[in-house]
């Protein structure tokens, strides 16, 4: 086994591929958080009065929470105290002129994106991906906007939406994740920097996958995106989000909020690949990913699908959920979460069944390697009036190595006698006989492991859009390299 261990170790020792710092002049504000900072952020972004009011309301609520030390501590993760006054809450690349074409984008920034493989260049555009690239809080360039506009689809940065579509933003902002929702969502509501906004009008099927890349660049800058997607009656949209962050020593805080609203017969598919910097092999550094994502199936027959591949971040705390309010609405959650080295993940979903004949499916695959700790935490709640609700949950864990941990905390709360709930969970390791079988047929150990792991995750990868599925498989094998010996 030792020779195998060596090759795998070599693979494991590969440096974080996306660890580099872009040298762009940054416009930042002093560290710390107080009302003035909130006003300053709002002012810098040229926001209207109502937006500032909303931020301030959230900030005041957050201050009271912080005083009461109400930072959530129930999750199965361990981290030192976060000094919220020692973070910078705004950072933007300097001198931002209005950009009309890609050529105007700072070449340094563009090279960063190229290294990341973000399809911002022309040829990638031809591949049919519209990208709203968030580079440290400010939208740098938005592509394919024109084409989408023809169909009446609004896809822009959040700050732009605040200015240009205030009615929509005011109507839906906070309607799924209110500013009082939880500690991190409240913090986000006060200081959110930017994010994406999409509105798909009635009966329109979005012709391409909408996509955003988030990237944390400046040191010690918490990134607080806010995404709002609204699918009007009969609309259909698939949204992709991917994250990569450069190597840093300090732990960086990422507290995003995503809100989805699906009206009658609308469908939203939200896919995420999360590959923030996970920290080094000793567990030093890495991103704290404390995210609140929630979708509301507000209308009849609406459907929201969450698909996530979580390979990065030192700590992940994330529960994309669905509120199944409309009758016959459907919520789905497919997740692969990988923890290697000293990564910790406490992730899962919440399915709140309110409407009649609502259905939800949960498929969660957790892979733990090294010293990684992986927890699935899910809530299935059937309210009194949710007649005929149906849920199927499956959470499987794969353990690689004897120092990692896999945990499951499923909660099922049923208040209606017609509900049918099924939950299954299993934990296992890659069998020696499986590896032996593959090796006997001429595969190397790491290929065999890759193959088995990919097979284990297949149910989830199948749900990802094509280009993401390929990237997800690659990411998975990079994150797991060196974990078998």
């Amino acid at each position: 086994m030792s020779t195998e261990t060596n090759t795998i170790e070599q693979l494991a020792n590969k440096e974080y591929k996306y660890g580099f710092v872009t040298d762009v002049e940054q416009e930042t504000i002093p560290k710390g958080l107080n009302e003035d900072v909130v006003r300053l952020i709002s002012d810098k972004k040229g926001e209207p009065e109502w937006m500032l009011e909303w931020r301030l309301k959230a900030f005041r609520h957050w201050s009271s929470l912080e005083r009461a030390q109400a930072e959530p501590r129930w999750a199965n993760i361990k981290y030192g105290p976060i000094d919220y006054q020692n973070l910078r809450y705004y950072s933007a690349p300097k001198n931002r002129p209005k950009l009309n074409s890609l050529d105007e984008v700072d070449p340094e920034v563009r090279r960063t994106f190229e290294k990341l493989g973000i399809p911002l260049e022309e040829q990638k555009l031809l591949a049919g991906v519209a990208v709203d690239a968030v580079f440290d809080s400010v939208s740098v360039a938005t592509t394919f906007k024109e084409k989408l506009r023809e169909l009446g689809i609004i896809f822009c940065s959040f700050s732009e939406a605040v200015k240009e579509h205030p009615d929509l933003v005011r109507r839906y902002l906070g309607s799924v994740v209110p500013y009082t929702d939880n500690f991190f969502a409240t913090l986000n509501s006060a200081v959110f920097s930017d994010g994406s906004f999409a509105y798909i009008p009635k009966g329109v099927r979005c012709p391409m996958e909408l996509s955003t890349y988030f990237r944390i660049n400046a040191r010690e800058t918490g990134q607080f995106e806010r995404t709002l997607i609204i699918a009007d009656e009969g609309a259909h949209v698939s949204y992709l989000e991917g994250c990569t962050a450069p190597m840093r020593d300090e732990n960086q805080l990422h507290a995003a909020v995503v809100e989805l609203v699906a009206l009658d017969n609308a469908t939203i598919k939200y896919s995420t690949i999360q590959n923030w910097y996970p920290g080094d092999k000793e567990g030093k550094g890495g991103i704290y990913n404390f995210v609140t994502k929630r979708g509301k199936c507000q209308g009849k027959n609406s459907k929201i699908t969450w698909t996530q591949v979580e390979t990065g971040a030192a700590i992940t705390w994330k529960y994309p959920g669905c509120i199944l309010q409309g009758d016959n609405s459907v919520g789905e959650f497919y997740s692969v979460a990988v923890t290697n080295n000293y990564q910790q993940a406490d992730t899962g979903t919440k399915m709140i069944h309110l409407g009649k004949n609502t259905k939800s499916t949960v498929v969660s695959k957790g892979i733990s390697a090294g010293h990684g700790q992986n927890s699935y935490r899910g809530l299935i709640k059937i309210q009194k009036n949710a007649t005929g609700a149906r849920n199927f949950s499956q959470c499987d864990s794969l353990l690689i190595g004897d120092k990692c941990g896999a945990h499951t905390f499923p909660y099922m709360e049923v208040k209606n006698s017609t509900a049918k709930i099924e939950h299954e969970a299993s934990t296992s390791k890659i069998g020696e006989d499986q590896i032996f079988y593959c090796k006997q047929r001429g595969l190397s150990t790491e290929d065999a492991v890759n193959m088995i792991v990919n097979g284990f995750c297949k149910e989830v990868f199948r749900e990802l859009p094509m280009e993401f599925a390929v990237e997800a498989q690659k990411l998975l094998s990079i994150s797991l390299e060196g974990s078998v010996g």
Partner: protein
Amino acid sequence: MQSTNKDWYLASFEAFEKSLNGEMKSSFHGIRKEAIGRFAELGFPTTKNEEWKYTDVSPLTRLRFQPVLQYAGEGVSKKDIERFRLGIQDSHVLVCVNGHFSRELSAIGKIPAGVRLGGLAEEIRSGNQLVEQYLARKAKYENDSFTALSTAFLMDGIFVRVPDGVVVDRPIHVIFISQNQDTEVVVHPRTLVVAGKSSQAAFVESHVSLSSRPYFTNVVTEIVLGENAVVEYDKVQMDSTSAFHISTTHVYQERNSNFASNAITFGGLFVRNNITAVLDGEGSEATLNGLYLATGEQLVDNHTTIDHAKPHCPSHELYKGILAGKSRGVFNGKIFVRKEAQKTDAKQTNKNLVLSDEASIDTKPQLEIFADDVKCTHGATIGQLDDEALFYLRSRGVGLEKARDILIYAFASDVVDKIKVAEMRETLQAMLHDRLEQSRAFNKN
């Protein structure tokens, strides 16, 4: 409004201490004092406490229960005991009335040499070595308010010692009777079972009552299994429908021992069962089964923990619940697999049948695994009777009510059938029928 009555319990502890007189100087009293101190710090759990998330104890803590300091068995006759024998004709019967052991009412048959069956109080008084070694050591009270309370008020209960290599061939039936005509009482009976190496014994613990006034039973059981010991521990809870019942069972297993428990919950208004099995020896095996049938305003909460501390241990768990009326069910099953517990094979199943719109169930199976070469699964379902199965039966001329009964009965008998004490199994099957009828009657009203 803060009316959890914590102070009430602290005050009654002082009264209790006074009643102890000379015994206050005994070494065990130090543990009592420590426990009440711990309780004073902990107070009663709230729903913010993850272990009590779904069960609000305020209906219990609002009431002022009186501790029962003296044995008073006058109101109970031998005839009453006959009624409570669950059809087991041939058994050693140990009776506790309001938490105090009664030698008059007990009927202990011929027992193998070295076996001790009897009251716990006298064993504490006589300074039994095993009592010193195990009592209040296995059931940790540091983080559990009710165990702390039980330890603080510990006076009497049952002590069973089976020496190495001895097989007790007849079941040992422990009957806890509540008998309170005038006041609301609280009792804290304690059972300590020490099964030696390669010994074997089967227990039945039943809880019954002779009055309809509310009472609170806070029972703690500690079971220690030596190497190769085999113990079955069945618990049948038939308290009155105004009773509060909290039971905590701690099982500690050494190498190659085998423990099986079947917990049947029929009675009580507010029931919480905690059972923890620690597999602390290679090759030991634990089976925890449970059945809860709740109707009316009942609340039944089952919390189970299986702690795999050593390698090569299998564990099995099957809990089934039937919820009718306005009842509430809670299930939490934890399985811990420690770092060194390789080759663990743990299986947990929780199935719930919800029969009425007013009933609700919260279930939370939970796995925490720190070893890699393990097989662990858990499954939980919540559902109703299968329409197709009902249709099948009706198409064969079985009436709707009868058909439902057959299906519910089949659902429940999975657990009942696992009980090894044959005579009791039959009694329970009959009781199950009665209970189903009752719940149907309730639904009609």
